[in-house]
């Protein structure tokens, strides 16, 4: 079945450094990928999404490129800010009409001053 893997459970970094969160997926047919962000004591919110191979998608300083050849959709930011501390989820639309999303296990990011 469809699945999403986020290898890092926790990423800790210093403000101003670049950050990359890994996301790989397995699917029979679907290629709609999403990143959601959840700040402490808040609900998850959509950060960005893509379905186009090799096209960079950007939002709020973050960017990600869907690479179908490697089944990856890594999230990157060139310079982390304290406010980027949050839980980040990668998600894949599951195969099938009217199907839902399957989420990865999430990566917690802590940005230190």
């Amino acid at each position, binding site marked *: 079945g469809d699945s999403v893997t986020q290898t890092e459970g926790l990423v800790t970094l210093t403000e101003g450094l670049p950050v990359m969160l890994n996301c790989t997926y397995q699917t029979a047919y679907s290629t709609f990928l999403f990143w959601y962000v959840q700040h402490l004591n808040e*609900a998850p*919110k959509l950060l960005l*999404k893509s379905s186009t191979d090799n096209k960079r998608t950007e939002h709020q300083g973050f960017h990600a490129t869907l690479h179908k050849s490697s089944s990856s959709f890594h999230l990157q930011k060139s310079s982390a800010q304290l406010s980027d501390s949050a839980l980040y989820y990668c*998600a894949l639309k599951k195969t099938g009409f*009217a199907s*839902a999303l399957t*989420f*990865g296990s999430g990566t917690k990011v802590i940005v230190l001053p």
Partner: protein
Amino acid sequence: EAAVTQSPRNKVTVTGGNVTLSCRQTNSHNYMYWYRQDTGHGLRLIHYSYGAGNLQIGDVPDGYKATRTTQEDFFLLLELASPSQTSLYFCASSAGVLYEQYFGPGTRLTVL
């Protein structure tokens, strides 16, 4: 902005108890979802619906029932609650499966 509300916000029950979690959205979205969030597991889909009277099974449906009574209202029922169902539950809605999901504030359920 889409508005999704959940009630109650906190609930404590005992093993074997009956619990109903409520969700209402006011943006006429077709899709509504119930998730549970647990550390190490992320967000896991329990049930979802793409219209009043419709119900689809998610990835972790065991021990849960759901009902979509209207376009706005989606309920999650735990008829014999167990400690393993202690979790943070989120409801969400979207215009379609490829559209942004708007999440409610969550309900923290504790089963003793």
